[in-house]
């Protein structure tokens, strides 16, 4: 697993020492977050104000432009961003370079060959030449640099490897999207009516009419699943299964596993998938047909998914790697088979998800890029295929998420815009498809998040309003759908935050109250669901913060106490979970300070415990955020302190 401990200060110290003497330098920088580059740029400009500074995006430049810029600069710092683009040539999934790629690949070759050949000329100018490569692939890219630019490489002055701890909360853990079919209409009422009709039909059908029954069962199961009636769907599956031969049971078993998974019964899901896996491992020994190999691959995928949901990411990774390996073999042996190609694309997506969950965003990005590349090929070869179009759209969404988590907001916006465009087309072409409508809603949410991060709050608000409108329609048409309810709660929360940032505090309060209400309903319905518990705690906390700013201190305290009680349970349930521990400590400090603010009696132990926890967390992880929170807690202990300011500050990051 990647070591993502903050190391900025340690790594740049020798760099700044080196740069004291103006001279030619060739500096290779690998990084795992764009914030590090922003910081480095800021520090360089501050420490060397008389040195000219220029940046070039290598992915949009050729050697001549770089060379001219270098010569024109004469001295100072020249940054070559996205240098990985120059090192890796573009090919399709078969390794073929198409005409459209050839010109760009030649541009890339020109850059590396040119810089290498002109090494001695470059060295004549007192310029520090920085090249930037992503940390996840820096070993591979380093080898490529040694191959393509060996002479310039031999002149390297320094290699720095910048790492920043990436908070898991920066990676949005959205509730898994459950897909809804178009059977029976697009609203819950319509589907219920259709289900009722089919169940009556089933009752009336003679048990000897096996063929007819086999057409009814799949539809009934699907409708029950769409409506969230998982127990009923599983019972129907079992009836269905009884009509099938051993050979035919696989699909039904798979559906059963999926239903267990979707209903949250992960242990039963795991058992089911393990059975399927055993069945196919045996089948392949005697009859290794393509179909069986593919089914085995799918069983690995399901096992990976379930282990991931259970939190065992290492195990999930093992299964996804097997899935990837098998699908790659299948595709390479059968390059015309779009199903295999699609499975391969999905396998990359799963590997990306797991690396992302493990905090290795750059590695995740590599896999997502591969997924997207295959997705694009599939869609372009099969433009009528809605599933492929949707797959491509989702790949853009994950690319956007990952770039955002890495701090590259401009790239994130580009991908979310593509996601939005595709989902809009899908929804407009298939207005009955609830899943597409939901995806469109989510695309607005992501655009809103990114614009907010870029500081454009008005634009963010517009996107959130659109998201919320669609979310409300979806929820009202499908009130049993947990995912839609949760999505709407999140939409309200974001509207609340944006209005708050814009200073519209009353409006913000309204939305936080709506969010809290929905979150409470979700938690009450699913008290075992940890995500809902945490979500409710966060909702109360945000409500509390809003009330505090509006000077409703007593109400704020009630909100914070509600949040605290839930966070305490989470902390006790999962003492190893760093995020829950930190949130608990923060809640302790907030309660302590609120009591002081209002003039109520305090429990000194609260703040002492909070300090102790943050000290331990910082010692264990060396993450600066915990140090800052620790410092704030220490200030809270001092007399005559602005408690309101400190509460707002500790919750702000």
């Amino acid at each position, binding site marked *: 697993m990647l070591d993502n401990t903050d190391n900025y200060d340690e790594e740049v110290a020798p760099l700044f020492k*080196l740069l*004291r*003497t103006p001279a030619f330098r060739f500096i290779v920088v690998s990084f795992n977050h764009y914030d590090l580059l922003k910081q480095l740029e800021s520090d360089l400009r501050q420490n060397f104000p008389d040195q000219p500074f220029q940046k070039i995006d290598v992915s949009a430049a050729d050697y001549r432009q770089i060379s001219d810029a270098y010569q024109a600069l004469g001295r100072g710092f020249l940054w070559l961003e996205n240098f990985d683009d120059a090192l890796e040539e573009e090919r399709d999934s078969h390794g073929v370079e198409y005409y459209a790629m050839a010109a760009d690949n030649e541009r890339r070759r020109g850059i590396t060959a040119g810089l290498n*050949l*002109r090494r*001695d000329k470059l060295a004549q100018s007192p310029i520090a030449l920085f090249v930037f490569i992503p940390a996840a692939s820096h*070993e591979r890219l380093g080898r490529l640099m040694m191959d393509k630019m060996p002479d310039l490489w031999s002149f390297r002055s320094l290699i720095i490897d910048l790492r920043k701890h990436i908070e898991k909360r920066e990676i949005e853990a959205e509730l898994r999207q459950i897909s809804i079919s178009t059977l029976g209409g697009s609203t819950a009422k319509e589907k219920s009516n259709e289900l009722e009709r089919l169940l009556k039909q089933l009752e009336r059908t003679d048990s000897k009419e096996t063929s007819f029954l086999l057409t009814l069962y799949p539809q009934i199961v699907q409708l029950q699943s769409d409506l969230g009636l998982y127990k009923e769907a599983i019972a129907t599956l079992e009836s269905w299964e009884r009509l099938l031969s051993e050979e035919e049971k696989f699909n039904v078993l798979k559906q059963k596993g999926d239903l267990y998974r979707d209903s949250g019964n992960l242990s039963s899901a795991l058992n089911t998938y393990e059975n399927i896996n055993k069945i196919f491992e045996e089948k392949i020994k005697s009859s290794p047909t393509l179909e069986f190999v593919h089914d085995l691959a799918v069983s690995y995928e399901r096992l990976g998914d379930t282990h991931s949901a259970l939190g065992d990411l290492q195990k999930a990774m093992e299964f996804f790697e097997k899935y990837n390996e098998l699908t790659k073999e299948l595709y390479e042996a059968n390059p015309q088979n779009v199903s295999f190609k699609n499975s391969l694309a999905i396998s990359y997506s799963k590997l990306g998800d797991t690396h992302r969950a493990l905090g290795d965003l750059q590695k995740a990005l590599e896999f997502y890029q591969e997924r997207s590349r295959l997705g694009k090929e599939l869609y372009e070869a099969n433009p009528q295929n809605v599933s492929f179009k949707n797959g491509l759209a989702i790949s853009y969404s994950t690319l956007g998420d990952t770039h955002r988590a890495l701090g590259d907001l401009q790239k994130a916006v580009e991908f979310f815009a593509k996601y939005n465009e595709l989902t809009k087309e899908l929804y407009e072409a298939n207005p009955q498809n609830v899943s597409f409508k939901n995806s469109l809603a989510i695309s607005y949410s992501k655009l809103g998040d990114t614009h907010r991060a870029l500081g454009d709050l008005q634009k963010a608000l517009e996107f959130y309003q659109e998201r919320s409108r669609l979310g409300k329609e979806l929820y009202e048409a499908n009130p049993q759908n947990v995912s839609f309810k949760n999505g709407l709660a999140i939409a309200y929360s974001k509207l609340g935050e944006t209005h708050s940032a814009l200073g519209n505090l009353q409006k913000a309060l309204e939305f936080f109250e709506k969010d809290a209400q929905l979150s409470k309903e979700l938690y009450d319905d699913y008290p075992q669901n940890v995500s809902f518990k945490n979500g409710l705690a966060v909702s109360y906390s945000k409500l509390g913060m809003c009330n505090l700013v509006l000077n409703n201190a007593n109400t704020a305290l009630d909100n914070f106490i509600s949040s605290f009680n839930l966070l305490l349970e989470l902390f006790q349930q999962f003492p190893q979970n760093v995020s829950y521990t930190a949130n608990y400590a923060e809640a302790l400090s907030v309660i302590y300070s609120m009591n002081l603010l209002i003039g109520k009696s305090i429990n000194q132990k609260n703040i002492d415990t909070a300090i102790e926890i943050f000290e331990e967390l910082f010692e264990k992880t060396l993450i600066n955020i915990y140090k800052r929170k620790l410092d704030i807690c220490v200030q809270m202990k001092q007399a005559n302190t602005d408690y309101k300011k400190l509460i707002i500050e500790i919750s702000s990051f």
Partner: protein
Amino acid sequence: MSQDLSHYKKATTLAEVDNAVRFDVPITPDHPFFTDFSDVRGDFEDKVLYKSLNVDPRTFIYNRTANIANKSLIFLAGMRGSGKTSELAKITKKLHRPNCFYCVTCNLDTGLDKNDMEYMDVLIFQIERLFEELKNQDITVDNGILASLQVWFSERINEVNKVITREGGFEVELKAETPSILSFLGLASRVKANLQGTKENAEKIRTVFKNNFTAFAQQLNVFFEHVNIRLRNEERAQELLFVVDGMEKVATIDARKKIVIGESDRIRQIKVNTVFTLPIELQSETQRISQMNTVLPFPFIKIRERNGIEIPKAIDRFFEFITRRIDEKLFDSKDTIKKAILMGGGSPRELLRVLEYANLYSDEEKGIITMGALDKGLKKLAAQTAQYITPADFEILKQLKNDNDADLPTATDETWQDLLEKLIIFEYNDGTYKRVNPVVELSELYKRYVG
């Protein structure tokens, strides 16, 4: 700070060390930093180079009568950072005299600006450089011979322009000028500029000259020999010697092979003494190249024997190398200096890199480079170097270590070439003796895989 050598002074404070250990600045023989390693490069001796050029290594007098019909064509093959450029500068200085050669240096990396270089580009560049020297040094040449060359050249350019015009493009400018050194220099420069211009024009020029290469070579050879006579008459030198540096930086391995091996026939048709630097990866082809020419390996300085025993003379020379640049009192002890030398592995550039890292991690308050700072710098350098080595590469390193421990030579093949080029392995003597880069040996990865 530019590359003006007067800026490079011996460091007497820590703050000055960084400037003093720069390895991107080629040092000339008359600079205080210059250290002569010629007698400590193991099997390599520079007198072999001089003798190959028919120069007496004691007197530096060129023997024109020996082998009068042939000119010397020498390839100097060495690893990156071995000091080839400095060595060539030293050799050039020694040979550039009336009793010896008139040296014309051609640095391909500063003089040419094209990625997909071919031999024709190099040759045109050599001609341009020669004419620059003739002009700057006021060396007169016979007008008839010059006119013949210039007219022939101009006719070729006319042919090129006809093709360009037919296919649409910008012609090479041809001025109606009286043949002279200046006018020919202008013509050569414009041809060179076009070779570095559009790919289409470059191809057309190269094609025309290649199609007429025999005549071109004959014209040039006459001119070169005439210049030799002029040089003798004016008592400036006995003959021309071209020193072409930078061939190893040309675009790709395939492009380099194409020039050195693919165009070897054309290279040999040009009858003028020339020293080329040879790309390290082509050393495996030396058998093929040396059938036609002289290939001299230019190894790193040997500081240890195969069995690990240190070579005091080489270490002392490196001590001198360091103390010319850094005042000895900036180190806490001689042991620190020695350790740095051993970690450099016999490569001057790698030693400078070790010293740079030691300086970066040294404590400014203490004001000296301590063993602790050196170790810290080495640890960092080791990790950064080893991270690019694959498990398969480590297997090769393991084999090399075992062979060296048993004092046995190691048979190598193309798979080793990659490691040589990346300076994971260092080569000594004539290439039969190799060692793992000492910095790599320090890394945790090496210890894990190799032991």
